């Protein structure tokens, strides 16, 4: 199998990959074809597991030697022992989750850290479309119509910051990026990120509660 170099990993995935320590135990929720897991296994020697609902994709992952469970991530995360993973990755999946709060809470049980990435719904192109056309917006990150989109949640960077705090997490790292879905290249957005970033990537950790 062809080795993927860091440059060839999709830009948002390469940010996630750069946050993962070598040898970590990683769970990738909604791992798709397994590109990130495969890269992390080869370059960072991780012990990785993926969960993927699509049977063909899950079978493809297993056929390339990855450990992947075919199933619904909301059920699959329930069976792991506490603290089973160093990092749980939820890449471009949060916007498709029915009960994000329930999911995030159960991820706090099984993982030390969670990495979440999602398309930013407050990008200026979306704001302008809604303002001037008055229709449900579409862009390259969110290309679907309202009636056929798998994305049942619209999330902005500002929303996520608030949400993660409410479900008991502290943000450790945050990276707003500007890239297009299949682009290998992108840029990190440091100013006016809620307006200019196409994606947000967050590394969060369970907030330590002071014992009384």
């Amino acid at each position, binding site marked *: 199998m062809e080795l993927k170099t860091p440059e060839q990993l999709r830009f948002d995935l390469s940010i996630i990959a750069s946050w993962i320590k070598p040898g970590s135990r990683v769970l990738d929720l909604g791992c798709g074809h397994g590109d990130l897991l495969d890269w992390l296994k080869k370059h960072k020697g991780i012990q990785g597991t993926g969960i993927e609902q699509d049977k063909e994709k899950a079978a493809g992952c*297993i056929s390339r030697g990855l*450990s992947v469970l075919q199933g619904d991530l909301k059920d699959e995360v329930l069976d792991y022992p506490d603290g089973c993973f160093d990092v749980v990755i939820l890449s471009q999946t949060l916007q498709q989750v029915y009960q994000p709060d329930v999911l995030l809470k159960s991820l706090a049980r099984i993982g030390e850290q969670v990495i979440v990435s999602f398309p930013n719904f407050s990008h200026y192109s979306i704001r302008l479309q809604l303002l001037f056309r008055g229709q449900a917006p579409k862009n390259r990150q969110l290309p679907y119509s309202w009636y056929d989109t798998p994305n049942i949640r619209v999330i902005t960077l500002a929303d996520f910051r608030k949400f993660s705090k409410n479900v008991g997490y502290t943000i450790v790292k945050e990276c707003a990026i500007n890239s297009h879905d299949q682009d290998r290249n992108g840029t990190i957005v440091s100013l006016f990120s809620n307006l200019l970033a196409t994606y947000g990537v967050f590394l969060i950790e369970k907030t330590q509660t002071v014992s009384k």
Partner: protein
Amino acid sequence: MKVSKKYYTCDSQEKCQILESGLQLSPVTIAYETFGKLNSDGNNAILICHAFSGDSHVASVYEDAPEDTAPGWWDFMVGPTKGIDTDIYFVVCCNILGSCMGSTGPGSINPATKKPYGLDFPMVTIGDMVNSQKQVLDYLGVKKLHSVIGGSVGGMQALEWCVRYPEMIRSAIPIATTMRHSALAIAFNEVARQAIMVDPHWNKGDYYHNPGPDLGLAVARMIGHVTYLSDEAMRRKFGRKLQDKEDFSFNFEANFQVESYLRYQGSKFAKRFDANSVLYITKAADYFDLADNVNTEESLQDLQGSHSKFLVISYTSDWLYPTYQAKELVQALKRTGQDVSFCEIEADCGHDAFLIPDPRLSKLIGGFLNGIENS
């Protein structure tokens, strides 16, 4: 590549097998076949465990039995460059203890009476089958199993291997199997056993010098065969089509194709299989339970601390061991911290789907085996 059936016999007193029931069985002969070459470290071996009525003839054709030209039961999977690549792996398949395809079973001669055991044959368990396979692997010089693979009752053996000899196992692929029989599965087995035992020719298992309970055995196979198929497969294959007829005959001949097919399968099976072996093997499958330590000594909880890789495979139309049972197995493995992969394959051919050539299965198994690091 051709193959010949070989036999391993253990008759020494110290190695004689103590069964889970506490009884002794000696001598024990296990028929087996091997493919490919064992490397000098003895760690490139793959053990394939056959299902209830299978045998050691997993692939290729016999070089020394010109009358038996049938390729093995998993010929599409096992061979050079196939899913289980015999250019890379040393593949072993043993006929299970209690069977009648070369290994010791109820039809074998009891040394105490010089007659076939019949019901004097002790009850054997899946664990006993695994222990006898271990003796064969020790004899062959296998130190480590790259994988232990099996479908159905073979999958039970694969799981039992992981629990009994975790240090020997790098990976396991249980296919279309379960941690324990459901009431439905036990019920079907009981109907099969009763069909045999009510046949007057069964004679409490003592029939080896007389005509055997072929009718009962055929009926047992008919019910078994239905459980290996599925509603969809039977609809597609037979529907309500009539057998060589334009109209109903208004009697109890086989009118429908499905009736004729089951009768044919039943009588074919009666010619090749021993009725007592059906009784013993179905009972072993019914007793098998890795879900808890209550009724059996071993359970999947014993895997805590061991590190084998698992690939669990189920089929959408398998109603004997449905996907929910495979998922229970996956859950149990996850709870003990095992590295487990799972995939449900879309197929309408029911429980027997794993025996039907399918490039998806070959690719899954080949890729999984390839991804296991040597250790």
